[in-house]
């Protein structure tokens, strides 16, 4: 039963990578969201079965040190723009989530869960919990928002001109999922995205507890 979830995930992934035009993570997630309940697999046993993949996430994030190291000279030359972009993007993510969520009539509790969503899922969950929001929803919003950001990667690369700036945007707005997309498109963007993801996690942990109470008053 445990191997079923793993085999299903891998099989759907390979099918999804053959589908042109749609990012595989999106088509695979939709297919699995439909298949898992249809096959009578309950969510908890799916999570247990797919856990070997999730366990590799930590080492894969550590591996991002390699593109970062290879591109270190290029990144160092663009240090000031990178830090400016990450801080501005981090603040924009928090402020826009609170303002748009409020304007659409979401409850304060929901807004608190959505505010830290640009940070990587574990940071979003712990920041949301500290703000008084639901940690599970915050993690889910971070992952789904990451996919939304990754969908915009080709546009970001065109709009930014310098791939390092596109990487800064993707790492800030879409954490690991945006970084993964950047890694598939451009090595310089990949390294910039990895550093932006790390710095934005820190920035969100500092900025969200300052900005959210101010905006929700």
């Amino acid at each position, binding site marked *: 039963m445990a191997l079923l979830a793993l085999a299903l995930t891998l099989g759907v992934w390979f099918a999804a990578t053959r589908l042109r035009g749609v990012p595989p993570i999106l088509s695979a997630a939709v297919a699995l969201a439909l298949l898992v309940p249809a096959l009578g697999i309950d969510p908890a046993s799916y999570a247990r079965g797919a856990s070997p993949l*999730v366990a590799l*996430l*930590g080492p894969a994030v550590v591996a991002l040190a390699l593109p970062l190291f290879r591109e270190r000279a290029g990144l160092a030359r*663009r240090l000031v723009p990178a830090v400016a972009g990450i801080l*501005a993007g981090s603040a924009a993510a928090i402020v*826009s989530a609170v303002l748009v969520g409020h304007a659409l009539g979401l409850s304060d509790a*929901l807004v608190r869960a959505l505010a830290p969503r*640009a940070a990587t899922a574990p940071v979003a969950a712990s920041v949301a919990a500290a703000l008084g929001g639901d940690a599970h929803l915050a993690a889910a919003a971070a992952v789904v928002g990451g996919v*939304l950001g990754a969908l915009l990667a080709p546009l970001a690369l065109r709009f930014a001109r310098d791939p390092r700036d596109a990487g800064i945007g993707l790492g800030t707005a879409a954490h690991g999922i945006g970084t993964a997309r950047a890694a598939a498109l451009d090595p310089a963007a990949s390294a910039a995205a990895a550093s932006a993801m790390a710095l934005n996690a820190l920035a969100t942990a500092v900025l969200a507890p300052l900005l959210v109470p101010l905006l929700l008053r």
Partner: protein
Amino acid sequence: MVMFGIPYPVLKAGVAAVKVPSSAPASAAERVRAGIVTLAVLAGLTLLGDALVGALHLPVPGPLVGAALLVAWLTQRPAHAGVLASADGLIAALPLLFLPLLVEAVGPLRALGPALLPVVITMTAATVAALVTAVAAARIAAWLCSRSR
């Protein structure tokens, strides 16, 4: 002496066991060994990052601390970057590794009921705002830097 809950002799033996070879692998057997060493180093740094985050109450996830440690290590020993090159394969697999989390996100989102649509609109708006602001701010800062020079 106990470090990160691991007795020091055990820690020292563990570090010695994953002694990183100093050149890039050539034969198939060496590539397999390099892959195993890479995974051991990456997993060890993940655990070390988690331990540091727990001990120092850092506001970032452990793997990001592990990545920072690896960058610091590689600046001291640049030759090791060649040995750890198989880590690129793991980076290429990152979207697949996120897939189960995305499938598991369906539950909390479905539980929102009628609030789902405004939540999705808010998430989309915040993502676009963060991306556009970050790229625009980086470009403006780069332009200001080049002008002041």
